[in-house]
C-alpha cells in the first residue's frame, strides 16, 4: 500500500499519465490482473448465459462473502490463498444448496436461488459487522469486497488472480467443444455417454473460482454483471460461438482497463460499479449499432420494407387503372389513384416522386404513366397477387372477399421460385377469384428488378 504515495496527484491528467507510464509497477500488475479477470469472467459467464443459468453467478458471488469473513475470523490473516479457499468453500456450499433444494423439496429453482443468495449475503454482512467491532489489526479493507477496489490489491492478490484466471481460460479452451455440447443439448450429451455431471462440476468450479478471485476487483454485489454483460453484448455481433467468446473476452478486458484506471484516478471510487457501468455502455452500443441484429439496423430494414411496399402498391394501382380503363388511357392523376387506393396525399406525392426517380413511372401534364420497366414490375406484382388469391381460394377454400387482404401482403414477398410453384399447383392460373385475368409472365419480368 505504501507504494501508492508515490502518486501524489497534482491533476487528473498527471495521474493519468503516471498511470500509463507505469511508474508504479503495481499499477501494471493490477491492470494485467483486471484484464485477465475481465476476460475469464466473460468467457465462463458465457456458458452460464447459454445454459440459461445466468443468475447462478450472482448467487455464488453473494455466497462467497461469509466464507471470506469466516476465513479471516478463524485465521486472523489476510493471506490471499486462505481468503480464496474460504470463499470457494462457502460458494460451493451455496452451489450445492441451489442444486439440492429443487431436486429434493417442493422449492422451485428460482426460489432456491433467491433464498440461498440472500441468506449467505446476510450471513456475510453479519460477520463483517462483527469483525469491524473487533479489536484486530489488518481488518481494514475487508469491506472493500462488497464493491471492489482495484487499488487495494496487493502483489500476492494479483499473483493468485493471474494463476486462477489463466487456469480458467485454458480449461475452457481445452473443453470448449464438450462444454458447448452440454450447453446446447444436455440430454443428448448424456445419451452419447458423456460424463455430463463431471463437466457440470468443472463448469461450476470455474464459475466459483472466477467469481471468488473477482471479489476484490468487482465486489460481491456486482460480480454477476461482469459474468453476463459481455456475452449479452457480444451476442449481437456474431453467431459463431468462438467469435462471441473472443469478443466478450475483449469487452471484459476493455471494461477492466477503464475501471482500473478510474480506481487510480479517484481512489475513493469503487472499481466494481465502474466496470459494470462501462460494460453496460458497451452493451447499449451493441444493442443499437450491431451490424446485423442491432436495433438501428432493424429499424432501417423495416423502413426500407415500408418504402418498398408503398412503391409497389402505387405501381399496382396504376396497373389496375390501366386495366379498368376502356378508352386506352395511360396517364392518371393523383385523384385517380386515391379513388382506387386510400393513401395520405403527402406520402402519395413522396412515393410518386421516388418512382419517377427510379424511372418506373413518368410524369407529364396529363398525369403519371407506367414506363416499360414500371409496367413489367406492376404486371409481375399483379400476377403474384392474383395467383396467391387463387391458391387461397382453391386450396385453403377461403372466399374471394377473404383472399384479397391476404394477397395484398403476400404479393410483396413472393419469390420467383414460389411463383412457379404456385403456378404448377393451381388448376386455374388464368383468372383470379374476382374474375380478373392473371397476366402472363413476360419474357423478362421474372428477372431482377
Amino acid at each position, binding site marked *: 500500500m505504501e507504494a501508492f504515495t508515490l502518486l501524489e496527484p497534482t491533476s487528473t491528467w498527471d495521474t493519468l499519465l503516471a498511470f500509463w507510464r507505469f511508474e508504479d509497477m503495481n499499477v501494471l500488475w493490477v491492470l494485467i490482473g483486471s484484464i485477465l479477470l475481465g476476460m475469464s469472467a466473460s468467457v465462463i459467464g458465457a456458458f452460464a448465459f447459454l445454459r440459461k443459468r445466468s443468475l447462478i453467478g450472482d448467487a455464488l458471488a453473494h455466497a462467497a462473502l461469509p466464507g471470506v469473513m469466516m476465513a479471516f475470523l478463524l485465521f486472523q490473516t489476510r493471506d490471499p490463498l486462505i481468503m480464496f479457499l474460504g470463499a470457494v468453500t462457502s460458494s460451493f456450499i451455496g452451489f450445492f444448496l441451489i442444486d439440492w433444494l429443487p431436486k429434493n423439496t417442493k422449492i422451485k429453482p428460482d426460489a432456491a436461488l433467491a433464498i440461498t443468495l440472500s441468506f449467505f449475503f446476510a450471513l456475510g454482512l453479519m460477520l463483517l459487522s462483527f469483525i469491524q467491532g473487533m479489536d484486530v489489526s489488518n481488518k481494514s479493507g475487508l469491506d472493500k469486497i462488497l464493491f471492489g477496489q482495484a487499488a487495494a490489491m496487493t502483489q500476492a492478490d494479483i499473483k493468485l488472480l493471474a494463476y486462477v484466471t489463466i487456469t480458467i481460460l485454458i480449461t475452457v479452451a481445452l473443453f470448449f*467443444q464438450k462444454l458447448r455440447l452440454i450447453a*446446447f443439448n444436455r440430454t443428448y450429451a448424456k*445419451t*452419447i*455417454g458423456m460424463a455430463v455431471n463431471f463437466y457440470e462440476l468443472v463448469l461450476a468450479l470455474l464459475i466459483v473460482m472466477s467469481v471468488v478471485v473477482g471479489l476484490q476487483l468487482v465486489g460481491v454485489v456486482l460480480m454477476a454483471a461482469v459474468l453476463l454483460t459481455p456475452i449479452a453484448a457480444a*451476442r449481437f455481433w456474431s453467431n459463431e460461438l468462438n467469435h462471441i467468446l473472443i469478443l466478450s473476452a475483449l469487452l471484459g478486458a476493455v471494461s477492466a482497463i477503464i475501471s482500473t484506471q478510474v480506481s487510480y484516478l479517484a481512489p475513493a471510487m469503487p472499481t466494481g460499479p465502474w466496470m459494470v457501468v462501462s460494460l453496460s455502455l458497451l452493451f447499449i452500443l451493441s444493442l443499437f449499432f450491431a451490424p446485423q441484429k442491432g436495433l438501428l439496423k432493424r429499424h432501417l430494414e423495416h423502413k426500407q420494407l415500408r418504402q418498398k411496399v408503398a412503391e409497389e402498391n402505387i405501381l399496382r394501382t396504376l396497373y389496375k387503372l390501366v386495366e379498368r380503363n376502356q378508352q386506352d388511357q395511360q396517364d392518371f392523376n393523383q385523384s385517380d389513384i386515391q379513388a382506387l387506393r386510400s393513401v395520405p396525399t403527402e406520402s402519395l406525392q413522396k412515393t410518386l416522386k421516388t418512382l419517377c426517380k427510379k424511372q418506373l413511372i413518368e410524369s407529364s401534364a396529363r398525369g403519371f404513366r407506367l414506363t416499360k420497366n414500371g409496367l413489367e414490375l406492376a404486371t409481375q406484382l399483379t400476377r403474384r397477387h392474383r395467383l396467391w388469391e387463387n391458391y387461397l381460394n382453391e386450396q385453403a377454400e377461403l372466399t374471394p372477399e377473404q383472399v384479397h387482404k391476404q394477397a395484398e401482403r403476400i404479393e410483396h414477398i413472393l419469390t420467383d421460385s414460389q411463383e412457379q410453384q404456385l403456378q404448377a399447383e393451381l388448376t386455374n392460373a388464368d383468372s383470379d377469384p374476382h374474375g380478373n385475368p392473371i397476366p402472363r409472365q413476360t419474357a423478362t419480368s421474372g428477372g431482377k428488378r
Partner: protein
Amino acid sequence: MANNVNSHPPLTVEHLSMRYHHKPVLTDVSFQIPEGKSIAIVGPNGAGKSTLLKGIMGLEKTIEGQVKFFGESLDKKRLSTAYVPQREEIDWDFPINVMDVVLMGRHGHLKLWQRPSEIDRQIAEQALKDLKMWNFRDRQISQLSGGQQQRVFLARALAQQANLYLMDEPFAGVDVATEKAIIELFNKLKDQGKTIVCVHHDLNTVGEYFDWIVFINARLVAAGPAEEVLTKENLNKTYGGRLSLLNDLTEEMYRTQLNKAHDTE
C-alpha cells in the same frame, strides 16, 4: 461382438414402470423388438410414449424394470445406440452451425480433450449428404426450417454410426421433402440391418412407414408386426380412454410406498 449382436434382440424392455412425482405414467411395460426393422411406439397424448423412450435411454428415472441393449446394459452399448430428441427440447437460437451440430454425434467416440478428426468430419459429411443437408453445412441452426432442423438431428444420430436408433417424433411438423428423406433413411438403415424405434403420432401413416408397432397407453396394449397388431380392437384399447382405476390405485401405491413395504416378489 458381432455374433453377440445377432443372438440378442437390439432392445428388450422388461417390466418397466415409470412415474412423474406420484402419478404413474407407465406400468409394467415389457416387449422385445426384432433386428433390422422399423418400430413405431403409438398411443394417445399423455400415454407416456416419450417418457418410455426417455426411460429406455436412462434420461428419466424408472422405478422398476430393466432395459437391455443387445443383451447388455446401456453403458456397454452406448456407441451402438443413437437417440434423437424432440425438436422442441432445443434452443434453436443457440449460436452454432449445422456442421458443428452433426459433429456432436462423434463426441461419444472422442476422449475428454479430443476434437473431431478428419475422419470424423468425413463421417459427418456423409451423414449430411445422406439427408440432403450438405449445402446447409455452414448455416446457423436458427436459420433452418422445422424440417431442416429435424434432418440435422437425424444426421447427427447417423454420424454416431449406431446399430439402434431411438427417435422421439421425427415426423412431427416436418415438410413433405423431409418426410420423404426420413423414409429413405429408414430403408437404407434397415438394409444395413439396423433397427429404428420411433415415437409416432400419425395413425394414418403408421402402417405404411413402420414394420412393427408397440401400442402404449399407460401400459402396454399390444406389440407385434404391423399387419398383425394394427387392428380395430387394439386401436380401441389404446385410444378408448384411460384405465382410471389402474392409475388411481397405482398412484395410491406410490404415495404409501407400498411397493417398498412388500418383502416378497
